[in-house]
């Protein structure tokens, strides 16, 4: 299954890109994907990262084909 992954702020800088499409095994969880990408791009301050699936931060579920997964560093608005 394919998911569209977006990176923001410091995470986009570490990844060297702001989005990519990843082909994942069916049944992959948000946590699996998070850990995999943190390792792949050596993303710092992993504990401060929030993941939004289809713009929702409450997402302790399995990913589905076509999901949009966003890696969000700490918010800094205002």
């Amino acid at each position: 299954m394919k998911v569209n992954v977006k990176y923001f702020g410091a995470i986009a800088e570490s990844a060297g890109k702001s989005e990519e499409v990843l082909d994942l095994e069916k049944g992959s969880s948000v946590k699996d994907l998070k850990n995999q990408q943190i390792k792949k791009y050596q993303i710092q301050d992993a504990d401060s990262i929030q993941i939004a699936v289809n713009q929702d931060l409450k997402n302790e579920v399995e990913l589905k084909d076509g999901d949009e997964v966003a890696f969000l560093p700490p918010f800094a608005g205002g």
Partner: protein
Amino acid sequence: MDKKKPKKVFVDGAIPPEKIATSIANHQSKTNIGAHSIFLGQIRADEIDGKTVSAIEYSAYEEMAESIFHEIREAAFSKFDITCAHIYHSLGEVKTGELCLFVFTSSAHRKIAIEACNYFVEEIKANVPIFGKEIFEDETHQWKVNK
């Protein structure tokens, strides 16, 4: 006021001070309003490890941010008896001394306008996916984290 309609919050670059004056003028015909409360966020020239911030470059997960702004508006209108509320936030580069956030709430009486304005600012800082790159005078940078 069209309080249910999603509104465009993001503006490119700094918020011009004239926008604040215009916004106030636009409310002079609404004579049920007795109080406006305004919050303006300005870029501060922080000194960090001997280097001075010269600008912040804002970026956002725009689609999610717009929907969170909308949720904050909905929550504010249900919590507070406000007549109207406007929010503007910068995207892109904003230099020190320039404005990056403008929150404008109006009500019949001061207390509600002030409390609602404060509510908007705190919610925006905590819950909207906006990111800030602090650019130093020597063109290096670090990523801002809200305290």
